[in-house]
């Protein structure tokens, strides 16, 4: 750990696989005790960044430091300071819950007594006591993930990397996870987590959005919401699919997306009447048009659409040249 309190630093971190650039010049700085949320569609490079930071993958460009150690040259020191929970199932299916924890504790060099103590704590904290003698293979996914999280934090690492820990997990386990993560950060643990859900992203101190291998945004959830460009309307009209087409063609409308049984329409200026009359002129039954505050999801969608448009534009220019 260095004087600035940064525990994860990346400068122009890049990873290529042949011709394909999975991660393209990512800069990251995460402070001690922070929860850093990593957002982005599948294939945007989130997991690749995490794998590089954990020393599972070598960067092909740029540098990274975790807990003050270089991820390329000092991967072993990095490993001593992190806990990693993979997206993939990474426990021994044929061992019981307790045996898995004993194994991972042993691998991290916990002493026998300390290990026994920690296992009890973790089992208790993750409400796994009643299942500790069950074979891991027999557990439902939510419980398996609890064991995996338990294994990752058994040795009390200062930094936890969690790659989609809650995907496919039941709400009860999800709630338990976040309570535990909040307690850990209160104790100074830094958490680096990838997620697909917006309410999880809202719980992070800082959110980085990945798209096409690039970090296209990196800020607090609040400031990200504030960065929304334009005015957002919630519009209910029927038929919905026609309404989507009509809304997109209206002047002053930047974009329109479906959101449940309604549309979220982004307009350049605040002119709700113009939007309503525009939709009605298209022969639609308009039930409601009201301005709403953008959620993180709206920001996320906008960021990605803009970024995608930018990439297409860049591609066109390249072709034109």
């Amino acid at each position, binding site marked *: 750990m260095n004087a600035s309190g940064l525990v994860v630093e990346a400068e122009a971190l890049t990873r290529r696989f042949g011709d394909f650039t999975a991660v393209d010049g990512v800069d990251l700085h995460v402070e001690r005790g922070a929860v850093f949320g990593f957002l982005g569609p599948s294939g945007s490079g989130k997991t690749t960044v995490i*794998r590089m930071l*954990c*020393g*599972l*993958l*070598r960067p092909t460009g740029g540098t990274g430091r975790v807990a003050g150690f270089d991820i390329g040259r000092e*991967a*072993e020191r990095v*490993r*001593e300071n*992190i806990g*990693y929970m*993979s997206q*993939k*199932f*990474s*426990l*021994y*299916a044929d061992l019981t819950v307790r045996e898995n924890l004993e194994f*991972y504790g042993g*691998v*991290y*060099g916990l002493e026998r007594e300390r290990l026994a103590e920690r296992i009890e704590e973790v089992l208790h904290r993750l409400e796994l006591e009643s299942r500790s003698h069950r074979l891991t293979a027999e557990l439902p996914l939510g419980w398996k993930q609890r064991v995996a999280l338990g*294994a*990752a934090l058994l040795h009390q690492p200062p930094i936890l990397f969690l790659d989609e820990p809650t995907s496919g997990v039941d709400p009860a386990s999800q709630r338990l996870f976040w309570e535990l993560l909040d307690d850990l950060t209160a104790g100074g643990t830094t958490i680096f987590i990838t997620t697909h859900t917006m309410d999880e992203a809202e719980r992070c101190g800082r959110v980085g959005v990945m798209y096409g291998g690039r970090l296209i945004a990196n800020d607090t959830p609040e400031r990200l919401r504030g960065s929304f460009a334009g005015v957002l309307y919630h519009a209910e009209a029927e038929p919905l699919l026609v309404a989507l087409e009509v809304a997109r063609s209206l002047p002053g409308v930047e974009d329109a997306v479906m959101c449940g049984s309604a549309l979220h329409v982004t307009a350049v200026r605040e002119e709700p009447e113009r939007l309503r009359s525009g939709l009605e002129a298209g022969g639609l039954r308009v039930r409601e048009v009201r301005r709403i505050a953008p959620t993180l999801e709206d920001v996320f969608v906008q960021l990605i659409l803009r970024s995608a448009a930018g990439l297409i534009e860049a591609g066109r220019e390249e072709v034109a040249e």
Partner: protein
Amino acid sequence: MKEFFDRLVAVAEAEVRYLTREPRTLLILLTQPLMMLVLYGYCVSFNLRHLPFAVWDQDRSETSRQFIGRLRSSGGGETFTLVGHFNDPRLAEDLLGSGTALFLLIIPPGFEERVSSGQPVRVQALFDGADPNTAGVAFGYLRDAVAAQNARLTLGGFERRASAATAAERGPAIGGVSFPTDSIQLRWRVFFNPSLDSTLFFIPGLIGVLMTFIAASMTATILVREKELGPMESLLTSPVGPAELVLGKMAPYVVVAGAIVLVTVLVAGFTFGIWPRGSALDLVSFSFLFLLGMLAMGMLISASAPSQQLALVAATFATLLPNMFLTGFAYPRSNMPEPLQWATLLMPGTHFITAIRGIFLKGVGWSVLWPQGLWMLLTTLLLLAGAIRRVGQQMQRGLE
């Protein structure tokens, strides 16, 4: 009908893609027949060549040297190979016990004198009977070679006598040509397996071959399995080092493999009545050394193979075939082309088969088999180091 072919083509196309995407599968499929052809072609031959023998020439005369020289050049110089001279009866057992020589010739003093005067002389041949087939065939060759020399001597003697008779102006009445008894008479003894029982010979070697295969295939799937099923990811982000991983994963299998050897030895003893003549300690120490190497080889395969299936195929391929064909388990190594013979010396199985046969059939131990032991130690260490290095490289690169 067209739809039938369209679907058929789609299925075939997908399979071709799969095959070309994993070239290692294809490579194994292609090399398998080639390797078998070479192995069968070179090793499976019932004509024996280059049979190693050693000589104790107690006569040290022109004639005895000539006798040895003719043996060496018989069969166009291909049949026998002289591996050395000795002059101490205590060395005899070591030479046969270590497998350096298949048979020993002892030429008695006064050989030249008796041959030139046409008197019978006994040459002793001591055979290593551990491999009864080879010993039997070798004895046949030796008998023929000696008979050829006798014929030459007889013919020479007859001509000499005939010319002497002419000079003496007619000898005794000719009552037909009398062929004198053979001058060089072969007396032979078989060591280690006097009844030339082939089961006795095969069982210890079989234990060796099975050990190779079982040990290597036990560890071959370990690391690939973890890669396929997931735990490897967590292991790679933990502070576990490659040596800890390799040795830790191997340790339980050393015990399992040891138990398998024990059971095999007991079964061989009770069902075939074949018990080791040598000491149990020798058997245990040689087996341990060998098993360790084979388990390490399995780990090496495991660290390199892309899938569990392929790992198993590779383990079978790397152990069963070469050990059956190249180690002298079924076919004498002396028969193989020389470069191949040198190559077989690199294989730990070759030395283990020699050692386990020595311990079982000849009752020899470390004092005779130390070169085999030393080589096995070296190969075991190399395989271990290789496995650790390979795993280390994989850990460095992660699971790319």
